[in-house]
């Protein structure tokens, strides 16, 4: 059994990689690609400003790399085993990574024979009285200088690209642009002679020469920053095993549409979804299972037929319509049923409530807890109503199967009371499929109920997943996919284990 579980766990790794890779590539290959949303809304921006903004963003999030490279970088960050220089952790808990490489300026061959190399810098020595604060200050100052130099280089490159774009558009060379409209430097490099004929050449030459200067500054500042970083201004993250290899916790990264750590976003959304489901699932079970049992006991009877068709009718009623109808009739005060709130999880005044309901000086106050329960009534009923059919039909079918078994006949023959046959024998044996069904519900909980959360404005996982897809937010999307996939796989494994525990005939040898 242990070996089996281990094997399944190891199998999970390639499966997870496959799933995340597939999702990532699907998004990357869709029109606009990763991060497309970030350039939205800049229609009123000047061309150069837009180019600079894009360049800044691409630099910050590494969006200029090709999609597979971006994916591999992401893998490197979430892998618990890290290679290369170790990150450091500043007092606010932020991971400080070694300074990024400086990208080689395009078309440098046109202006210099050799790329400038950084000036050599002595290893940084802390003063003997250096405190953590003063070390941090030194690092911060140098980091700021480096990012300023880098920003100059980036905007310089964007300006050069804009000017090159004008030149190639003038010449009418279509193949010098890629699908996203970026200029292709390798194509341009081969067309120096043609570009020299355009009126833009002076400006291109000026910008190109400037760019070499910016590059020189940037590599110098980076070298200095590297020296400070190597002197370890902060404690290192994780622990090293071999030189260049260390273990530290996976870094899910930051969402670029919200620029907050992905883990923080998920940990805000998950409790909400779990709360809804923790209320909904027991309700489904407590209603569906007894009615399924009753239907099985009086199979073909009036209850069986009525409950069966009623549940199927509910199951086939579309959730979006149900949600809107509920808001229309059960939340509008002008109707008799309209006693429920239409959106959110708390009333406006809930922040001033006590946790439990109180009755002080003749004033009834429903309290925070009750207020929340009152708010989830409509969304939970939306979640619940479609769930009865499957579960009650499952119970009924399993019960009927067992009723026809030999052991039931034997029990009847022995004179066991009907009640005992139903509860002790048949029901127990019918429970197995229900247990495994419960396991498969976990992943659904994580994915959230997208439609319901949207209708009732509940900030849960469903909303987060949809948002990450709409905004093509790389980090958020990959983390969500990864989590939902992992929980799905674990749930499947758990189901298999439960099978073998519940049914001795199944074993994984």
């Amino acid at each position, binding site marked *: 059994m242990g070996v089996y579980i281990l094997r399944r766990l190891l199998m999970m790794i390639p499966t997870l990689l496959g799933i995340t890779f597939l999702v990532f590539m699907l998004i990357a290959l*869709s*029109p*606009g690609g990763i991060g*497309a949303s970030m*350039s939205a809304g800049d*229609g*009123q*921006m*000047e*061309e*150069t*400003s837009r180019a*600079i*903004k894009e360049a*800044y*963003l691409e630099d*910050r999030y590494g969006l200029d790399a090709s999609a597979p490279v971006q994916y591999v970088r992401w893998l490197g960050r979430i892998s618990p085993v890290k290679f290369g220089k170790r990150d450091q952790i*500043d007092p*606010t808990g*932020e991971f400080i990574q070694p300074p990024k490489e400086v990208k080689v300026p395009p078309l440098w061959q046109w202006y210099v024979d050799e790329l400038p190399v950084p000036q050599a810098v002595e290893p940084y020595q802390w003063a003997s009285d250096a405190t953590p604060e003063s070390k941090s200050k030194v690092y*911060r100052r140098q980091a*700021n200088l480096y990012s*300023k130099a880098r920003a100059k280089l980036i*905007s310089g490159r964007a300006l050069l690209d804009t000017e090159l*774009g*004008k030149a190639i*558009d*003038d010449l009418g060379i279509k193949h010098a642009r890629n699908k996203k*409209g970026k200029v292709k430097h390798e194509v341009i490099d081969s067309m120096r002679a043609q570009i020299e004929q355009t009126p833009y050449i002076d400006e291109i030459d000026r910008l190109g020469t400037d760019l070499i200067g910016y590059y020189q500054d940037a590599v110098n500042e980076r070298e200095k920053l590297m020296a400070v970083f190597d002197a370890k201004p902060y404690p290192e993250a994780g622990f090293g095993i071999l030189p260049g290899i260390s273990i530290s916790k996976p870094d899910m990264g930051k969402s670029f549409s*919200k*620029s*907050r*750590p992905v883990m*923080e976003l998920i940990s*805000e*959304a998950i409790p*909400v979804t779990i709360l809804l489901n923790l209320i909904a699932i027991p309700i489904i079970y407590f209603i569906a299972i007894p009615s399924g049992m009753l239907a099985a006991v009086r199979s073909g009877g009036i209850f069986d037929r009525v409950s069966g068709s009623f549940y199927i009718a509910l199951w086939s009623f579309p959730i979006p319509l149900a*949600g*809107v109808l509920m*808001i*229309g009739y059960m*939340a*509008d*005060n*002008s109707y008799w049923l*309209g006693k429920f*709130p*239409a*959106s*959110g999880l708390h009333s*406006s005044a809930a922040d001033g409530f*006590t*946790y*439990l309901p109180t009755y002080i000086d003749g004033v009834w106050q429903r309290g*925070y*807890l009750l207020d929340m329960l009152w708010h989830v009534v409509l969304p939970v009923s939306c979640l619940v109503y479609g769930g009865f059919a499957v579960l009650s039909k499952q119970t009924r079918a399993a019960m009927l199967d067992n009723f026809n078994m030999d052991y039931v006949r034997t029990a009847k023959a022995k004179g066991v009371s009907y009640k005992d046959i139903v509860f002790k024998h048949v029901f127990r044996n019918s429970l197995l499929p229900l247990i495994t069904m419960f396991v498969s519900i976990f992943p659904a909980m994580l994915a959230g109920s997208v439609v319901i959360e*949207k209708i*009732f*404005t509940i*900030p849960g996982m469903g909303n987060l997943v949809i948002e990450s897809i709409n905004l093509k937010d790389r980090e958020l999307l990959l983390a969500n996919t990864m989590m939902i996939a992992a929980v799905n796989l674990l749930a499947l494994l758990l189901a298999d284990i439960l099978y073998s525990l519940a049914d001795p005939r199944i074993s994984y040898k």
Partner: protein
Amino acid sequence: MQNKFGLKDFVLMVLVVLVGVFTLMNIKEGDRRWEKTQELLNKVGTVEQQVAKLDRNLQETETAIQEVMTGIAAVEGRLTNLDDRLSSGAFSVNVGAGSNSNTGSANTAGNARGSWARPGSVPIQWQPRVEFASEPYDMEGYRLGGEFTEVFPAQLSKLTPVLAEDTYARRVNDQICESLGDLDPVTLEMKGLLAEAWQYDPEGYWLRVKIRDNVNFSDGVEVTAEDVRWTFHDYINNPELETEALRSILTSIEKVEVISEKVVEFTFRQPDAYNLQAALGFYILPKHFYTQLTPSQINQSTALSMGSGPFKLNNLDVDNQWAPGKDVILVRNEQYWGPKPAMKSMRFKVIIEDIARLTEFRNGNVSMIPPSSPQFSKVSREEGWDDFAYSLNWANMRSGYGFIGWQCGPRNGKLTPFHDKRVRQAMTLIIDRQLIIDDIFNGIGSVAVGPNNPPSPAANPDIEPWPYDIERAKMLLAEAGWVDIDGDGILENERGDEFTFEFTRVAGSQTTERIEKYIVDQCAAVGIRCEPRIVDWSLYDQILKNRDFDAIMMGWAASSPESDPKQIWHTDSIQNQGHNFIQWDAGQDRYIDKIKLTLDFDERMKVFHEFHSLIHEEQPYTFLRVGPWLRFINKDFKNVHTYPKGLEQREYYYAP
């Protein structure tokens, strides 16, 4: 004996679980109480601080009164002196000299007030006192208190100023933060807010601003010139902060220098009509607050928003900020330097579903919602609705417009029929825009006349929209060489090519679908074959960049009364995949370049009007509709007015 789990065990277990749950709840309750106490203590602290400040102010006032008293005594002394001289007759000779010395002293007083100014003849533009556009104080039922709840249809993810630049974050931050200058709600002219006066170089290279003396941030610290310098140089222009969007726009400001504690000077790279807006229009942030934080703390923050505005966020603690998904609550800034709002607080709530929004509004749980167009036209006609709510429908400076762009240049190397302006005019003539508004938009909106629409002063008031006139359109088409030669009902040119074009629209919208159907019909009526091409919004960018369309329907949003026409209309934007995607080139550059260089407002508007006339004549776009703002506001709030600038919630007061 069989070890059985019986009823007793079950009851016992339930009891144990219950005890556990209650203990947990109690702990939670205790936590909440503790937090409340902390909050109260904080509030007491602020109140004490204010009392101390009032005390100081009182002392200052007292000394000032004393000074005035001594002044009065001196004047009295001089008066008696004068009396003596009058009676002695020494004054009568000296009238002319007296008036001279009077003007002289007025000048010196002016210089004293403007001692911060650059020497020379550049005039100082003193700004009026900050006041409400409509004073509520003397109105019926005016009182303090109440909470105004505004509903947003989309989730807010971030509030920290400059990092968050979406419309909703801006609407919240407009209550919290202030800029040096702001547009007047009625006239839409730049007016001093934090700035008391400024001096603007007639050549357009520099701007010197004097900050008001009494302005302070919501924590009581004074707004100084250093805060202005810091906001531009070390906040917006800090490459470590995620301020890319603004940083790339703000390239026109070369540097910001502190002249004295309250005086700051902007230097511009080159003269530009939009420089004044750039320098005066950005939020001024408190340096002392943000420098306590590391760049990554600011980057990852959700709501570290502090400024000098009439409202403030209660929680500005890094570890305990507002989190997305909760309501944003702003409380009145009791130390506000300007006219204080009557409302105690403002709440911003997110409700995504539009039926839920309307339901909550009907229930009286929220004060203002943006209804959808069908909701607006249906609900506002309900009986008794007008006693319950204001139904506001007005065009303002942020109203954008919808249009159909005609490909005036080549598409894939081939000219489209629309390169001829007569054809474009004909296209406009066959589209009854008023009918589209009445039938498809439920009568909400007005026919757009050009790139700037009323109430923007940049719109030419003499321009009437093109009429709906099929006969004239047919004539224009015939003039342009499009006649039905072979009698098959489709127009041809002399080469025999049929008039066929592709009409690109975005998928998934009912209104655009209905407009498309209408246009196909109208084209058929004059003998033009219009083939719809329906694409996903995410493909639009690529289509526009490659100029791969004959006609395309879309819309532009507006953010200011005179947005720079350069990006959309200049021929420079034809190159390099810019936003002149219709590749229109009809000599518009002379106007656009002149607009940028004309610093005087009235002069600039004249050029704008000429530019508008050119566009009207050329019809590179067929302008469809100006989308007005629609709002329902609960009638419990009074002093509600619509302005060309938008709404001024801070003027409202709550009087149910």
